[in-house]
């Protein structure tokens, strides 16, 4: 190709190619607020892990949340920064300890529900026909059964089972049960999105190229529905923190250990009496992580949208 186009003279080394994700992460790094939020999330995760480790090693702090550090219902003071509860336990310790259960349940349950819901929804939407029928059948059935009943059933079935030598107990049952029952919403949303996009030209182009159905779904369609996944994740996350307590209620999960949901639930009896601090502390704990998660999620969403990229 003699007269074919020669490259620009001052050709630098070709820039390394990057995928959407690497790109997005690179861009995220540049956003200060998002990184702060990410730091907060990490901090929460760190506390949760710390509690878990403390529990394994039998370390006393903060597993000693059930030691009275004052009188009942002490308002916030120097010794008990967030005050004490009905038994005189330090609310700060309870909040810290509760991080483990709440985060564990919320994280794993949301991830599980997304891992199930997204591929199911995508398959239903993309392939249609029989696959769609079956998936629609499954989720219609699941949605029609009262949630409490369903979750209870799942939890009871899972309780104390040992699949693959791994004992399902405590919070594990809770997040499995929540995760296995709550994928329906995201499944429907993704199905709708896929239905809308599957006839677009770029999907035709991918098909013409010889891409398989799975590849089209995962490489072409799902990246275009990430915004839905991200927002669902952050919305679910928060509702699961609140929902965790329902299962504990039904006598499953971590029974007498504090989680934020359980704290809010018991604090609601104290609130009308004027003991606002337990409610406040737990709500704040939730508020901060959800702010962080949402802002981070928004940033991630923006970074995953090439049309919004700027400097």
């Amino acid at each position, binding site marked *: 190709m003699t007269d074919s186009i020669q490259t620009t003279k001052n050709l630098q080394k070709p820039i390394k190619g990057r995928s959407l994700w690497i790109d997005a992460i690179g861009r995220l790094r540049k956003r200060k607020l998002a990184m702060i939020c990410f730091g907060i999330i990490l901090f929460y995760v760190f506390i949760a892990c710390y509690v878990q480790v403390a529990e394994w090693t039998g370390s006393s702090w903060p597993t000693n949340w*059930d030691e009275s550090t004052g009188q*009942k219902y002490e308002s916030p003071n120097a010794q008990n920064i967030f005050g004490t509860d*009905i*038994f005189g336990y330090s609310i700060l310790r309870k909040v810290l300890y509760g991080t483990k259960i709440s985060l564990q349940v919320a994280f794993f349950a949301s991830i599980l529900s997304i891992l199930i819901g997204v591929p199911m929804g995508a398959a239903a939407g993309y392939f249609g026909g029989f696959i769609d029928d079956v998936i629609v059948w499954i989720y219609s059935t699941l949605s029609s059964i009262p949630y409490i009943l369903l979750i209870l059933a799942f939890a009871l079935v899972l309780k104390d089972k040992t699949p693959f030598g791994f004992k399902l107990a405590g919070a594990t049952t809770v997040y499995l049960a929540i995760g296995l029952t709550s994928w329906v919403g995201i499944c429907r949303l993704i199905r709708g999105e896929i239905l809308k996009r599957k006839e677009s030209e770029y999907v035709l182009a991918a098909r013409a190229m010889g891409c398989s159905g799975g590849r089209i779904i995962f490489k072409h369609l799902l990246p275009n529905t990430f915004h839905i996944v991200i927002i669902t994740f952050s919305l679910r996350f928060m509702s699961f923190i609140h929902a965790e307590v329902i299962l504990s*209620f*039904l*006598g499953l999960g971590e*029974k*007498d250990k504090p989680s934020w949901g*359980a704290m809010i*639930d*018991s604090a*609601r*009896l104290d*609130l*009308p*009496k*004027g003991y606002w601090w337990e409610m406040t502390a737990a709500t704040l704990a939730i508020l901060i992580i959800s702010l962080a998660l949402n802002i981070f999620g928004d940033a991630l969403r923006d970074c995953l949208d090439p049309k919004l990229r700027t400097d």
Partner: protein
Amino acid sequence: RSGGIPENEVVIYSAIGSKIDSLDPGNIGDTSSSSVASQIFECLYDYHYLKRPYQVIPQLAEGLPSVSEDGKVYTIRIKQGIYFTDDPCFEGQRRELTAADFIYSWKRLANIKYLSRNWWVFDGKIDGLDDFREYTKSCKSMDEVDYSRPVQGLQALDKYTLQITLTKPWPQILYLLAHLPTAPVAKEAIDYYGKSIINHPIGTGPFVLDKWNRGSYIEMVRNKCFHDEFYPSEGQPEDLENGYLADAGKKLPFADRLFFMLIQEDPPMWFLFLQGKLDASGIPKDNFQQAIQEGQTLSRELAEKGITLKTFRNPSTYWIGFNMEDPLLGSNKPLRQAIACCIDKKRYIDLFTNNRAEVADGFIPPLMKSYDPDIKEKGFGFDIERGKKLVEQAKQLNQGSLPVLTLAMPSTDVVARQYGQFYKKSFKEIGLELEVDYMDWPTYLGKMHQKDFQMFQSGWVADYPDAENFLQLFYGKNVSPGPNNFNYVDPEFDKLYERASAMLDTPERTQLYRQAEAMIIEECPAVFLLHGVAFTLHHSWVENYKPNTFQYGLSKFRRIDVEKRKAYRYK
């Protein structure tokens, strides 16, 4: 006023805390339903409104029953001129109450197809009634049962005379004849309404049902056919100065219309009371601080509003029970006693009841005549050291360490969880480990029936002011699925119980009761925690508000100063 209520009517607004399932007296099993249905139905006997200790007085009966020598035959005269309220089922006729109505109503309780929850009232007590029950088993359905079949122990000697023959002496029957399930219903009504009888309560009481919006409210109006009944003219000495006798001898009821509002949550109930929409209210736990000062008197703020506080004891006892058939607990008395020592009842009462309770050492509540003032010495008080020692003994007895104990908790809500935490902590103090199993009520009931538990949290509110009602809980023949959930069997106790329960109220019987109680405390099938004390508030416009824990049909005594209420509401 709007809502179609005539301007000049006197209306009482009360709150009920749980849904009313039924207004059919034969099937009523809970206090909410009883307090509503008691405005419509009346029994042969009732408790005196003012007198204390509680005293049984005739209601539909002419007087107290005449009892035969052997204590088995009761003859009761029924007041004449008492009519069921007018209803289409009577086809325009006035329907007078007769002795036959009682017999019919009680046979109906016995009818197994009716599936009453109140058969325990007469179970095994009345001559021939159990045979009637046996007969109904062979019937295909409720309607097929032939009520004309005679029952030996239930005879109408004439239109107004009822004769009851018991299988054995049973003085407590008097109290049960004041118990709502024994209230008479009319056969015509039952036949006429069939299945929908639950919506058509037809009784002889001061009020009749006007509107029943299930899940919302019940509205009643004055019964036009109500017989003459008058406000009592005697009571306790202090009642006069408290103004309870101002209306002495006046015809009842004073109100024209009753509203029972279903309010399941405390905050709205409290707000409605403060707004003057409800005339009286309990004190929600949440608002206790606001209402009651130190020293258990009403706060200034409320007192200035003209609100009055009334406190009264409940015939109730709450405990942690042990399943005596449990291989560990049943055979390890020191362990049971140790547990009894580890619970700080004062603190429990302080944390969970706002001090609206008294520490229980035995099971007989202080309001009963047979309450033992010296019980404190006999019982197991809070004593960690003693508890620890007992645990050591228990370990020896068990030849080794003690396993984790489990407690069945009949609720899964927050409060139950707090109880659970409290118990766990208490057990830990003396080196025991506790697992609390939270479950819903039906599951709990099932476990009780199947004896499938180790420990349980429970309590008992006496049906009548006789300690026998508590004693029977430990009677060997009453083990699960009967009321003896401890599955406590002690031949000696049983003998004592059998003797005492057939006796009339004498000092000797009181002695026996106390002896029985001491036996139980020593054997320790349960840790007794507390006896309830109730606090209620009412507004200044409610007159004649004297609390009464055994009597339910109280609305007829209340008088409302409508003008005062109006003034308060519009302030």
